C-alpha cells in the first residue's frame, strides 16, 4: 500500500459520522412475516407465468410459446408484458440526468472495462451511467435522433438490470443481429425502468422509450433507441464494430 493509500485510510478513520439511532426496532416494525424462500419463489414464478399466459393472447408476438419460455429476456434486459403501463411522464425532466456523467469518447474508451462497439460516425455526446452503462447520443441530448447504450453483465448473481414494460399497442418482434437473437419493440412507447439487482425499480429512472432494438453481444446488453424501422435498426446494429 502506498503512502497516499495509508493517508486515505487514516482520513477515513478520522471521518466524523453523526450519531445514529438504533434502527433495529424500526426495521423489525417495517418487515412483515415472510414465508421461507422456496415457497415464495414458486409463488412468484407461478404468478408471473399466469400473467404472461393471459397477456400473450393479446400481444403481437410471433412464436409466442417460445417467447414465454424465455421470458423475453436478452442479456441484462427483461421485457415484461403488462396490461397497463405505470404512470410515466412522456417528457421526463432531463434525459441527460438519467444518462449519467458526460465524458469524451476517448475517456469512455479508457474507463470502460470492455471494448466499446462503435459506429463509423462518432456520437455527438457520450455518457457514463449507472451499472457501467455507456451511452452514445446522436443529436441533441434533449432530443436525440439515436441512443446507443451498452451495459456489461456482471459477475455477481443478478437476474436483470433493465426492465422494459410493454403493454398492448407495443409490438415485440424477434429478430437477429449478426445471428444473435434480438427483440425489436415498436408501436406505442413502452416504459423503461432501471432496476437494482433485487428487481426493485429505481424510481426516477422510469421514462417512455420509442422504438428499441435490444440484444446481447458477448456479455453486454446493447440497446438502440430512436424513431427507427426494424430494418434500419438492425442495419445500424450490424454496423456497430
Amino acid at each position, binding site marked *: 500500500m*502506498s503512502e*497516499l*493509500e495509508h*493517508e*486515505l*485510510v*487514516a*482520513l*477515513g*478513520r*478520522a*471521518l*466524523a*459520522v*453523526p*450519531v*445514529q*439511532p*438504533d*434502527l*433495529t426496532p*424500526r*426495521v*423489525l416494525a*417495517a*418487515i412483515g*412475516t*415472510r*414465508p*421461507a*424462500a*422456496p415457497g*415464495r*419463489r414458486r409463488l412468484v414464478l407461478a404468478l408471473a407465468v399466469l400473467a404472461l399466459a393471459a397477456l400473450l393472447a393479446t400481444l403481437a408476438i410471433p412464436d409466442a410459446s417460445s417467447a414465454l419460455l424465455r421470458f423475453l429476456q436478452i442479456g441484462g434486459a427483461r421485457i415484461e408484458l403488462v396490461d397497463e403501463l405505470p404512470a410515466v411522464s412522456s417528457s421526463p425532466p432531463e434525459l441527460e*440526468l438519467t444518462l449519467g*456523467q458526460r465524458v469524451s469518447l476517448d475517456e469512455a474508451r479508457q*474507463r470502460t*472495462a470492455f471494448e466499446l462497439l462503435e459506429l463509423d460516425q462518432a456520437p455527438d455526446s457520450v455518457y*457514463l451511467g*449507472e*451499472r*457501467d452503462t455507456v451511452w452514445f447520443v446522436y443529436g441533441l441530448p434533449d432530443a436525440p435522433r439515436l441512443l446507443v447504450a451498452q451495459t*456489461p453483465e*456482471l*459477475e*455477481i*448473481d443478478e437476474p436483470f438490470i433493465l426492465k422494459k414494460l410493454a403493454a398492448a399497442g407495443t409490438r415485440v418482434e424477434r429478430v437477429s443481429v449478426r445471428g444473435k437473437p434480438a427483440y425489436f419493440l415498436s408501436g406505442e412507447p413502452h416504459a423503461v425502468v432501471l432496476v*437494482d*439487482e*433485487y428487481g*426493485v425499480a*429505481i*424510481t*426516477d429512472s422510469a421514462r417512455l422509450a420509442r422504438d428499441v432494438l435490444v440484444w446481447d453481444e458477448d456479455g453486454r446488453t446493447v440497446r438502440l433507441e430512436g424513431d427507427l424501422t426494424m430494418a434500419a435498426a438492425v442495419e445500424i446494429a450490424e454496423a456497430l464494430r
Partner: protein
Amino acid sequence: MEDRPPTDAVLAERARAGDEHAFAELVRAYQGMAFRAAYLLTGSAADAEEAAQVAFVKAWSALPRFRRGAEFRPWLLRIVANEAHNRRRSAQRRDGLTLRAVADHASGGVVPSPEATVVDDERRQELRAAVNRLDERDRDVLACRYFLELSEQETAEVLGVRRGTVKSRTARALERLRGEVAP
C-alpha cells in the same frame, strides 16, 4: 463449553427461512457500517438513516435470493449503496457530497474518532478537497476501498462492477489524486 455466537452465514440462513430474531441480530451487527457507508455516499445524515433503514427492509425481502455461502456484508452494502445512490439522484445533488462528513467534523452531534490525529488537519483538508474534486465514480471507489476499508472483491460487489474495473478505477483515481495534492 462456552457457546459461540452464530456466524453471519448461520444468521443469514435462519433469516432466509423467516427467522426475524436472526435478522435483528444482523441489523444490530451491521447498522453502523450501513449508516457509515450511506453517509459517505450521500453526505446527509437524514438520507443515510433512511437509506440504511430501507436497505435492511429490502434485504429482508431479498433474502430468498441471497445465495447460500455468499458473504452477507458486501451483499448488504450493495443494497445500501443502491439506496444511497437513489437518494443522491433524487435530490439531484451530484457533486461535493461524498466527504462532507469531514467538513462537518466540528459540528454538533458528531463523535470524533481517536484516529483523528493521525493525519494532521491541514493535510486532511487538502486530501478531502482533492477527493471532492474527483468525479462521482472515483470518489465512490476510494470511499469503498479506503474509507470503508473493503477488499477489491467486496468493492466490486458493492458498486456492481467487475473486480478488474475496481482495480483500474482505483489506480486511475489515485493517479488523479496524486496530481491534485502535494507529495
